[in-house]
Structures are given as C-alpha cells and as structure tokens.
C-alpha cells in the first residue's frame, strides 16, 4: 500500500466517522443524566432534511444550520415532555420518535430528493467534533454543572433531596442530545453526501447508540470507539477492493457484536457496572412518590 492510499483511507475515515461522534457524544450526555433516548435515528433524519430544505430554499448556510438545530430542539423537547413530565416509558417513546422521524423526514423531503446543492467543507465539523468531545469530557468531570448531571443520572432521588432540579437537568441534557443528533444529520446531508435521500442516515443512529455503551459512557473512549467503528466500516470496503475474501457483512456486524461483548463484560461484575453505567438509566423519576 502506498502512502497516498493510506492517507486517502484515513481521510475517508475522518469524514465518515464525524456524524457518529456528534450523535454519540449527545446521547452520552443524555444517558449520563439517566435518560435513554432511542430516537437518535429519527432526530438525525429530521435534522438532515430540515437543514437541506432550508438550504435549497434560502441558499443560506446559517439559516439551514439554525433550522436544523431548531428541529432537534423541538423533537427532543417533545420526547423530554413525554418521558419527564408524563413519565412515559423511555424505550417506547424513543422508538416512537424514531418511527415518527423516519416518516416525517421522508414526507418533508419528498420534493427535494436529487436536488443538487453546494456542500459545506466537512473539516469545520471534524474540528468541532474533536472540540466537542474535549468540552463534554471537561464539562462532565471538572465542572459543578457536570457533577449535577452525573448525580441526577446516578441517583435521581438523592439528587432531588439535595435540592437539584432533576427535571430541568434532564430537559437540558435531552435537548443537548437532540441538537447533537440533528447536527449529525445536518453534516450527513450538507457536508458528507451532499444531497437528500429517504432514510439516508442508514442506521448510524443505532451505531451511535451502541457506541455510547461501547465507550462505557466515557467521552474520550467514545471518540476512540467512533473511529474504530468508522474505520472498520471503511476497511471493509477497501479489503474487498484488494481481494480479501471475508464477507463484508461480518465487518458490518462488528460494532454491534463488540458492543454486546463490552456490555456483558461491564455488567457481569456489579462494581464494574456501578463504575460505568449511570445507575438511574431508563428509570422514570416520580416526584410524588
């Protein structure tokens, strides 16, 4: 392999992994506060389509980015209202959000499939994604607000009795996660593709979800994990090209298998589980009990 080829592959890995970093780091913060949002795929698709439509209509990158973010705020706000105020089941609500998002994005984008646009340079977003991981790692481990987020996620009853506003904290982390997913979608339709196609996120929302577990809820590991997952996907295509006979599907299922193995590893030991997973994850907070 020549140097050019290696640099080329690294470049593709960098460009194709960034949406995983965005969606994953958002979900990590949401889960750190004790909420499991399975709606990533839906959020990404709606973020992708609103950004794309706005760009086609206005021709303005700032507006399109803004509206894409707003779509994430609205959708994740609805999710937050349901799971926090109405105390609905987080799994069912997240799935509803994904199914709804798949449908909504397809409807909104119907007239815009195949419309050509001038894509944005992906490198801005790549740099931002690294800064974001740094920021989240610092925020969660070194700031007081980050400590509150973790406290709420570990034991919401204790956090509540210490006087922290559990509901408000979770609203903010859910919306942060939602916006990050929208940005991931925006990146895919504006920088990576750049175009709109029904269901174009192609399951990246689920990989991002796996990634958070794979990273045992730690921001830096999430970054490493994202590049491992992204790298495996790209390697798969290139190995085929240079004639390796292993079926591509086995590479594609690696992220999911690896996540299951990590999950088994951390949960088989009670202490290890306590040290990695937020204890209140997926447990609704009922103030009046």
């Amino acid at each position: 392999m020549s140097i050019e080829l290696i640099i080329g592959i690294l470049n593709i890995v960098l460009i194709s992994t960034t949406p995983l970093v965005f969606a994953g780091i958002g979900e990590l913060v949401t889960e750190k506060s004790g909420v499991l949002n399975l709606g990533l795929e839906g959020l990404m698709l709606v973020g992708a389509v609103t950004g794309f439509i706005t760009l086609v209509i206005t021709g303005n990158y700032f507006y399109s980015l803004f509206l894409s973010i707003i779509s994430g705020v609205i959708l994740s706000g609805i999710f937050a209202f349901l799971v926090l105020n109405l105390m609905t089941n987080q799994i069912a609500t997240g799935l509803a959000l994904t199914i709804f998002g798949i449908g909504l994005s397809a409807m909104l984008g119907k007239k815009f499939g195949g419309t050509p646009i001038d894509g944005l340079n992906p490198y801005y977003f790549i740099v931002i994604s690294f800064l974001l991981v740094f920021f989240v790692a610092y925020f969660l481990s070194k700031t007081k607000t980050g400590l509150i987020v973790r406290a709420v996620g570990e034991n919401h009853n204790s956090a509540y009795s210490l006087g922290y506003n559990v509901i408000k904290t979770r609203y903010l982390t859910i919306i942060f996660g939602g916006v990050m997913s929208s940005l991931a979608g925006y990146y895919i339709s504006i920088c990576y593709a750049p175009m709109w196609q029904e269901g174009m996120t192609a399951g990246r929302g689920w990989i991002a979800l796996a990634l958070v577990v794979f990273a045992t809820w730690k921001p830096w590991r999430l970054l490493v994990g994202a590049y491992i997952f992204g790298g495996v996907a790209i390697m798969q295509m290139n190995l085929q090209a240079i004639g390796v006979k292993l079926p591509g599907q086995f590479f594609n299922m690696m992220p999911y298998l690896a996540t299951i193995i990590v999950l088994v590893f951390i949960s088989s030991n009670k202490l290890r589980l306590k040290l990695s997973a937020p204890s209140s994850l997926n447990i609704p907070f009922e103030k009046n009990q």
Partner: protein
Amino acid sequence: MVFLIRVQLREDYSNLIFYLSPLVAVALTLFFGSFIFLILDLSPIESFKIFFISPISNSYGISELFVKATPLAIIALGLSYCFKNNIYNIGAEGQLTMGAIFGGGIGLLLNDSTSFFLLPTMILFGALGGAFWATIPAILKTKFNTNEILTSLMLTYVALFILDYFVVGPWKDPAGYGLPKSMPFPDAGRLPVLIDGLRVHIGVYFALIICLITYIIYNKTLFGFKLKVTGLSSKASQYAGFKYKNLIFYTFIISGACAGLAGLFEVSGPIGLLYRDISPNYGFTAIIVAFLGRLNPFGIILSSLLIALTYLGAEDAQLFLKIPSAVGFVFQGLVLFFLLGTDFLNKYKVFIK
C-alpha cells in the same frame, strides 16, 4: 396569572379508561394527521378516504389487510409475554429475520422436496430460529445481568447482516441475474392461501390460535398469574418464591418463537423466497401494536388490524396522493406518542390551581 399544576397518583385507577385510551389516541392521531395533509395542500377528508377507507373497500384490500396484520399480531402477541413481565425485548425484528433464515433455509436445502412435511418442518425451524435468537439476550440477562434492551436491539442488526450474507453469498439464486435474492421455495414449502387468487394465508389461523392460547394462559394458568404478579411488583413475586430467571427465559423464548414464526410466514407466504428486505419494520411496529392493544390478546388483534391499515393506506397514498409511503410511519409514531401520553391521565390526577 400563574398556573400551578400538581399531579397525584390516582386511587380510582380506571380499567375502562385504560381500554378506552387507545381510541382517544387514535382520534388525536387523526386530528393531527389532518393538519399534516393540510400542510401538504391535500384535502384531509379526501386523503383520509384514500388512506383508511379505499384500501379495504374490495376483497383484495381486505385480504391484504390480513396479510399485513398477521405478522404484526403474531409478533405482538409474543412480545406481550415479555412486556407483561417487564422485560423489554425490542429485538423482534432480528428474531423474525432469524426465523426466516432457519425456516427458509430448510426450504432452500430441501428444494426438490414435494413432501407434505416440508412446510411443517419449515414452520418448526422458523419458530426455533426466532427462539434461538431470543435466548441469547435471555442468557446474557440471567447469567451476566446484561441489559436486554440493548442486547436484543444490537442482535437485530447482526441478524440482518447474516441474512444479507446468505442472500448475497451462498444462497444467491444462480439464475437470479445476480440480484441479492434466493431461489424460490418449492411449492411444498409455500404457505397455502385461504382464497384462490388472494394473498391471505393460513397464518391468520395461527394468529387466532395464538391469541386464544395467550388469553387462556394469561387468565387461567399459574404461569400467567406469575407473569402478572412479576409485572406488577417484582418484589412481591420474589417473596412468593417465583423463579424470576425462569420467567425471563420462558417469556423470551415465547416471544422469539412467535417472531420467528411470523418471519417464516412472511417468506413462505406472500414473498416466496429470501431477500434483503423481508420485513417493512414489522418487528418494531409490533411493539406499537402490543402497547396499543394494551397487552391484551384480543386488543392486540384489533390494534394489529388498525396498524396494518396504516401500511396499506400509506401504499395507496403513495400511488394516488403522490406522498411517500413513509407517511404511514408518521401515523404509527403519532399514535404511540398519544397513547403513552393519555396513559398519564389515567395514572395521575391533575389539579390546576
């Protein structure tokens, strides 16, 4: 003016409202759905007609309704065991796929068979395949305390890639112009249709039988009672000495077998061969069906028909209204949102001061 909203757990928890709230959710979905049609510059009444009435206004449409409702009902009935037990198996899509691979694989291996026993063997292997795939999260949950939500979800994607491997690789039809699909199953491996010329098949009977068995299990057996107690309070169930780990196993295996059965019915019924997209999200949509049917066997039959209608309506809408068939997902998502939301009003009293 400041509103103070206070909520309080209801003591007069109403079963009537519990069973009526799906209707409220459907009504709200239709109400909001009409806005979606208005935004798209379509007349809501005309659109609803195309969406919900015209698809079932002839015998072909009614047959298609049952074709779509059958897998949804079978999977959702299986899932109700898990959900009653507070076990979140959300990997039914993967278990369906495994059922199709196992059962369909038998059909492909014995491809020159004309035996009467081919179809029953395929059905058996379909159920086994689904059950096998569901045992993995069950073992991980009981042995290693691993969260079943994430493992069952991840295994879904693993199963989809395994199916993809088979239809692109070893099972690809040599005469299929290189398309990623298998040979058709032999006639002896095809599910008999109920009415000549229509696609509705004997899976409908299976769905009804599973529904009746489930009703009996839930209401007349100790196993059903254990599920109910465990679902209401896992502590009470422990004090009573019920073996929770066994319950997890049984509920996973039942739901996996049902999903596998549904997968086999799809490939040996309407589809007739194996290819990549054997299921339009049935495994995930069945979760909505189970919740909308309130985990009640008869309720699930009704909700499976309703959700099947959203699939048909979406196909017609694509044809006649020129809107993407994904509009069906919008309705499915909305109805689940509203159902979960209305449950709140049943569980809690709201005071506004």
